[in-house]
């Protein structure tokens, strides 16, 4: 399936909009398994590059903090108030966000392919979409984002 097709399928279902220090990330709402307060993250015994754990379905799952450039942060900015729990294969991964919008709050405009000059190997950005006259969002999905974070952790 092409990146464009993935991007289209990512946003034909209801979408969720994550705001991370001004970066808008759109992904299928179904990819979000839970929304938790960032204050519920257990910061004890965090795995390398994660900032702690979140409890879900009687297990704990690693939580990561990423920047607007999608690099891993170990110091959590104060504006990260929400933890989205993304389905990742057989498990889950938490990502801290400033804000999360779901349902009818998320109105997407036209979908665009990622320009070929912007393609990088392993990018989780599958496409672009306009939100309104002034804002653009990057389209991703849980699979791409979690795989990207896993690669960052490994390297």
């Amino acid at each position: 399936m092409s990146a464009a097709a993935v991007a289209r399928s990512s946003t034909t279902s209801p979408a969720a909009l994550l705001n991370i220090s001004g970066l808008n990330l759109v992904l299928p709402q179904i990819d979000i398994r839970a929304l938790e307060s960032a204050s519920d993250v257990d910061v004890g015994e965090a795995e390398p590059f994660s900032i702690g754990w979140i409890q879900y379905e009687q297990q704990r799952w690693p939580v990561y903090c990423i920047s607007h450039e999608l690099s891993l942060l170990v110091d959590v900015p104060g504006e990260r108030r929400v933890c989205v729990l993304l389905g990742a294969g057989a498990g889950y991964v938490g990502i801290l966000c400033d804000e999360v919008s779901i349902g009818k709050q998320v109105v997407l405009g036209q979908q665009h392919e990622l320009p070929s000059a912007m393609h990088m190997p392993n990018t989780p950005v599958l496409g672009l979409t306009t939100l309104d006259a002034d804002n653009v969002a990057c389209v991703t999905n849980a699979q791409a984002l979690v795989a990207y974070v896993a690669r960052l952790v490994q390297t």
Partner: protein
Amino acid sequence: MMPVEKNPVLRSNAWLLDFSQSFCAAVGTRVLLQIIDNPKLHPVPCAPQHCSSVFSWQGRLLPVVDMASILGVEPQTPHLLAIAGYRELPGEPIRFGALLLAAPPVAIAVSDNQSCMLPEHSEVWSKFAFSCFEQQGKAIPILHLARVFSSLDA
């Protein structure tokens, strides 16, 4: 009656683009469509440094290329943007992209007898230039926009 000799007046047929720190290149006059002052760019993460934002233009999201970054000089602050139209191949639909500029473009007249070798950074220019001409003692590459807006590996 003496025949009147017309002065051969060269009409401008190219735009000279300044990418900062005296790095210049040229494109044909029909290529440049619009100059945008103080554009609002939308950063895209995990993209190459030379093309890390898009510009919303007429319902499209155009890749914004910073040639200064490709040439290894300090990346530009988004001050001026040139909207360009180009074709990947003759007969194909027009595609659009945007180039960061350090100064407004200058209209120039270029003729075939000005052709010359590529300037410094010829390993870069050989990827992104069709050819080159001499203008006031300086070698000016002619941009191959399809390559500029495809990828560094093109």
